[in-house]
């Protein structure tokens, strides 16, 4: 008697699918034979929408690409525009960008760690990770006014300088004065003080997460030797970021092709040895520690070097309100910038950054108009998810969940 393989549908609304992933699995008993991901359920045509609006209008859309590492996506888009225009933001803006890129990396890795843990049975971790995410989202809010979709980076700098005050909790019928005082203890100073307090606390919190997982028997059983990728295959499959480093390839755009001020900062690049889910977990946890170090260096520099955070050229940066009241030319620049935008010289450029998930790139093509002719986002998760079939073949059904977790996929950027 022969038994035929079983076809199994997974998702698109399964909590372990991390969004809207639909998998058609061909199973031989409990072993995966073939896996066909169906994506596109979140396709919004962002790249097409970018073609009908001026360059600056699309920055907000970039936040919605990878909606757990918002500012990094903006960064890549803004960098592409700046390269085409041939402008460079002031140094302070570059430091602010780097600092927020690293805050974003923490945000992303915290969500990844929490959700990955939750998927394979570590419930408590999710709550701890979200506790820390809350502080970081407060930094986003303080600087841009929005907790997630910040639209903070602009071609030529950032929208505004770091605020000197943190928003504070206030007492109400549910929260007493005493409790409010406790909640506000690190909010008395500026945003930089708040971030500094966070970076002082954070390494010991990462230690806490590690006590829960790193030597945990169940965690190891679920991740060690699961989804092994050799360095050669990792390159061939277009991997980048922690997925590539987990396989032992030393490659980090922050180090190898430094953008902004990364070449002035001191940090280490962790790499894995065996290329399994456990190694990629270790790489990401170490990246959180390194990001904390980078943030601390940025805080120090930003404290010592006040200055402008936007280029002076009024063709790309709005003139000050005060200037506009007295200066006709400023008024014209303001009008042109907000009605028509700026025209970008003809050409094609590909700008990539080290996004928390891997290499996030924007291919931008201009025909000289005030709108992009073609914009294409290179999403790291897209390449990673394409490899899920190869990574899961021969593994058990439950391991597919570990592999989805380790890929660190977000559908905003896969489906675009």
């Amino acid at each position, binding site marked *: 008697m022969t038994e035929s393989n079983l076809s199994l549908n997974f998702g698109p609304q399964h909590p372990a699918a991390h969004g809207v992933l639909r998998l058609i699995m061909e199973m031989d008993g409990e072993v995966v034979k073939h896996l066909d991901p169906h*994506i*596109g359920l979140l*396709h919004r*045509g962002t*790249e*097409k*929408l970018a*073609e*009908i*609006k*001026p360059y600056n*209008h699309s920055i907000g859309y970039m936040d919605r690409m990878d909606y757990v590492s918002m500012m990094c996506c903006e960064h890549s888009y803004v960098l592409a525009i700046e*390269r085409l225009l041939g402008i460079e933001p002031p140094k302070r803006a570059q430091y602010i960008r780097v600092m927020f890129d690293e805050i974003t990396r923490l945000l992303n890795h915290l969500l990844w760690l929490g959700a990955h843990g939750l998927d394979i049975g570590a419930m408590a971790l999710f709550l701890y990770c979200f506790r820390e995410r809350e502080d970081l989202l407060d930094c986003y809010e303080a600087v841009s006014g929005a907790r997630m979709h910040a639209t903070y980076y602009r071609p030529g700098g950032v929208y505004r300088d770091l605020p000197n005050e943190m928003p504070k909790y206030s007492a109400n019928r549910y929260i007493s004065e005493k409790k409010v005082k406790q909640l506000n203890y690190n909010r008395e100073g500026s945003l930089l003080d708040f971030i500094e307090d966070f970076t002082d606390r954070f390494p010991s919190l990462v230690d806490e997460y590690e006590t829960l997982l790193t030597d945990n028997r169940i965690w190891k059983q679920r991740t060690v030797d699961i989804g092994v990728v050799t360095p050669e295959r990792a*390159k*061939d*499959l*277009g991997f*980048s970021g922690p997925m590539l480093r987990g396989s032992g*390839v030393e*490659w980090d755009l922050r180090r*190898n*092709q430094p953008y902004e001020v990364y070449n002035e900062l001191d940090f280490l690049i962790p790499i894995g040895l065996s290329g399994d889910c456990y190694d990629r977990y270790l790489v990401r946890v170490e990246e959180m520690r390194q990001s904390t170090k980078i943030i601390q260096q940025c805080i120090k520099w930003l404290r010592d070097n006040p200055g402008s955070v936007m280029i002076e050229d009024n063709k790309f940066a709005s003139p000050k309100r005060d200037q506009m009241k007295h200066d006709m030319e400023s008024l014209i620049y303001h009008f042109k910038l907000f*009605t*028509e*935008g700026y*025209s*970008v*010289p*003809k*050409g*094609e*450029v*590909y700008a*990539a950054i080290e996004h928390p998930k891997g*290499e996030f*790139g924007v*291919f931008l*093509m201009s*025909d*000289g*108009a*005030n*709108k992009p*002719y*073609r914009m*294409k986002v*290179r999403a790291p998760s*897209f*390449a990673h*998810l*394409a490899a899920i079939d190869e990574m899961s073949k021969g593994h058990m059904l439950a391991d597919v969940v570990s592999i989805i977790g380790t890929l660190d996929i977000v559908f905003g950027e896969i*489906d*675009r």
Partner: protein
Amino acid sequence: MAKKNHIKLINQKLSEYSHSLLSSDHDPLFLVEQSDLVNICKILKTDNELDYSILIDICAVDYLTYGQADWVTNEATKTGYSRAVEQKIIADHDDEFPDRFAIFYQLLSISNNSRISLKTFTTKLNPPSVPSINKIWNSANWFEREAFDLMGVHFKGHPDLRRILTDYGFIGHPFRKDFPTNGNLEVVYDEDKEEVVYKPVSITTRPSVPRVIRKDND
């Protein structure tokens, strides 16, 4: 200087095949013939000195409306200042596509720490096609499927050329310039039939900002 030498090296390695350097302002961009594409890619990947081991991205571009603007900006207006922009209807070009579709490949070499881009035009006949490079870099698989889905470019030799991002049963290739931004169909819930049905879109495109090309930037 290092960049110049590297371009020289690439030219030397690819001397058998027709290719030309289009721009070196950013990453070097080479124009290659699509008939030579597979051989060129093989050299770029397997040659020990070049070692372009990672294919980063594939992007298809539709040149149908390249360089066209809504407003003329180099002379004074004759129609006054309330010039609204009307939606242009772009004629179908279904039989031939001379130089309409191009594919951009982004390559990365880890050992040399360098990037290059390749550009190639598709065949002129409908459907436009280029050879698949899926056998050389496996990451091309989904990138080519995406370009096929959104731009309608066929990749000859691709093992599994299916739609990837659009809906099941979708008609057309949405990123082509003659495809309206609003789309053609929308889904609504039909009370009588008690099911979700497709019907033609009920909204029209209204560009909020006209597309202008300013020459003073060139």
